[in-house]
């Protein structure tokens, strides 16, 4: 029976740091049915790992204190495969992803909800490990997980574990004015080397046989955003974590929102040697690859250098660079200067980047 499991669940055993004992316990459908086993799972594993009074009450909804400021609300589902990858796991992703969305929106993250959709047969040690990551990420960023939900779906109806988090934050003035306010001359910054998350996932998932396995940038942007906003104030126009679709997708959205052209220079883009090597090998463009702890920032003309130097003072954004500028709408919404210096349209990512041999 155990051999079979190894195959069926190879997606999370690959690179999984957790060793699964032969007599391991697994998530069963009964864990999701609302009875004693459900309560046991929630109390002894989830609430225990997240050690949290509000959760423990297990009410239909968490009762939370009044908030003085205006609110920010966001949500994301995390469906990463494999569940564990160099640099993080689905749990760290689920916390940082939502916190980053609040942070780049100008909010101080306060509370998270946590919903687990588990496939029947998920080893409980795997769940525990993910919960531990969640607890650590929450503690590190000072947010509280105050409401949750668990569902179990039959074998084959989900891919091991999906996580949804929703986040509530308090908006802190001055709120960045947003992409719609971009103006000619504004400077574009990326906060670190790009493409690390997507390449890390691709390398482990597709079993490309690469060594060393590249590491994801999965992490919190809370401190960099705070530093930047505290020091630069109104100079910061907008921020966005460059997740799915990568930096190219953020540029495309900002160009649409502002009606301007966003233009970057290929040579100024920070790319790590590993990401570079794999991208060349597979014919991929790091601009289209997902990040999970790297953001794009637009600041007013002239503020780029200062912003970058503030960012460089933190280890998580030590590789920040000014990569381009905002211009009046030209040949395309988003452009790039490649080798020869001529400005070219930059493809909008069309679907997932496929490794190619041409």
């Amino acid at each position, binding site marked *: 029976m155990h051999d079979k499991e190894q195959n069926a669940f190879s997606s999370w055993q690959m690179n999984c740091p957790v060793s699964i004992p032969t007599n391991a316990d697994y998530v069963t459908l009964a864990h999701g049915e609302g009875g004693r086993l459900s309560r046991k799972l929630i109390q002894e594993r989830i609430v225990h790992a997240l050690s949290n009074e509000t959760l423990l009450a297990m009410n239909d909804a968490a009762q939370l204190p009044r908030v003085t400021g205006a609110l920010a609300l966001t949500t994301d589902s995390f469906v990463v495969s494999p569940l564990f990858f160099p640099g993080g796991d689905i749990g760290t992703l689920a916390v940082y992803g939502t916190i980053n969305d609040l942070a780049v929106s100008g909010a101080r993250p306060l509370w998270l909800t946590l919903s687990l959709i588990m496939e029947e047969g998920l080893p409980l040690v795997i769940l525990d490990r993910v919960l531990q990551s969640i607890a650590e990420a929450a503690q590190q960023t000072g947010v509280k997980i105050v409401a949750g939900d668990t569902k179990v779906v039959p074998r084959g109806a989900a891919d091991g574990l999906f996580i949804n988090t929703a986040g509530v934050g308090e908006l802190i003035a001055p709120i960045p004015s947003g992409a719609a306010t971009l103006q000619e001359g504004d400077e574009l910054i990326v906060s670190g080397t790009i493409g690390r998350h997507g390449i890390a996932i691709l390398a482990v998932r*597709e*079993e*490309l*046989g690469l060594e060393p396995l590249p590491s994801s940038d999965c992490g919190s942007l809370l401190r960099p955003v705070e530093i930047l906003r505290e020091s630069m104030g109104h100079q910061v126009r907008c921020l966005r974590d460059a997740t799915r679709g990568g930096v190219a997708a953020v540029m495309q959205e900002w160009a649409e929102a502002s009606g301007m052209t966003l233009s970057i220079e290929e*040579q100024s883009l920070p790319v790590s040697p590993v990401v*570079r*090597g794999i991208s*060349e*090998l*597979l*014919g991929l463009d790091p601009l289209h690859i997902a990040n999970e702890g790297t953001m794009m920032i637009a600041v007013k003309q002239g503020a780029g250098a200062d912003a970058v130097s503030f960012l460089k003072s933190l280890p998580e954004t030590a590789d920040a660079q000014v990569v381009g500028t905002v211009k009046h*709408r030209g*040949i*395309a*919404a988003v452009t790039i200067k*490649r*080798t*020869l*210096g*001529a400005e*070219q*349209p930059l*493809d909008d990512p*069309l*679907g997932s980047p*496929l*490794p*190619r*041999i*041409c």
Partner: protein
Amino acid sequence: MKYLDEYRDPEAARLLLDEIRRVSTRCWTLMEVCGGQTHSLLRHGIAAELEGTVELIHGPGCPVCVTDQEAIDFACQLAQRDDVILASFGDMLRVPGSRGSLLDARTAGARIQIVYSPLDAVQLARKHPEKQVVFFAVGFETTAPATALAVKQAARDQLDNFSLIVSHVRVQPAMESLVQAPDNRVQAFLAAGHVCTVMGYESYESFVEQYRLPVVVTGFEPLDLLEGILACVKQLEANEVRLENRYARTVQAAGNQSAQDLVREIYQICDRAWRGFGVIPEGGLELCLEWRQYDARTRFSEPALPVLGIDECRSFDVMTGHLKPPDCPHFRKSCNPESPLGAPMVSSEGACAAYYRYGMTASH
């Protein structure tokens, strides 16, 4: 990266561009044969820089673009069988057959695995003894050694669950068919550097002789391409017709003998339908008789499906330089990257996709 970065040096590229402009007295029409070269010319902005100086015709050298619809339909059909895992290079997934693309088939439930190497597909067969793994073997002579090696490895490991849909195409017959056309506009060729890496370039001697057209073996990085273009322009300006190798760090006259042996052991030359071109005599490779048990067409007795509808894509005219993509009646109307009529609108080596992106908000 060594041997990449230095060939992208902007200053050196600028010098070569200037030199090309300096030596050309008129606008010459060159064809880069390989889609990889097309991709690089467009990505690095070389085509745009040379507008008015050199007209670049994006040749048929993208195996993805010329793979026959019937082969794609067959691949989709096999992929949908419960007992089959279809393995393919990522490039082929978005190319429409007459019943949709492999990506469409996957959306409809087919099991399709992207691989980086044909040898990885053999590994997949080893891992799934209960399934038939079918590798969609597209590509030029460059790729054939890898797929040949995969067949040999499957044989060594006595895997009876590995087979190929062989759609390999050969470059030189296509070039001949192009220049033999009465309305041929190509004045010189940049020969495909990696095809020549495997096959060498001696076979071009007779081609150059017969058709009186310069052929320059050319690489893929900006400096490689510029050097190849410069060599062509110089010959044309001097009214010379020679075969030159401007990718000598990689290509030797006789090519790679071991790779050719490998290909000859497994494959034999055959006529092949090229999308847009029709059947090109000796235009492809097929498995030799003694390896035919690795042919998916032998292994699976699927009835051949008729190719549906007409292939409305005008890629032939685009690839022969008689139609600029924006002049195609389907361009940006019924044909766009999200629902392409033809392969050139799909792949990053396709001319139409590149023009589409250019044209989106462009004024020219």
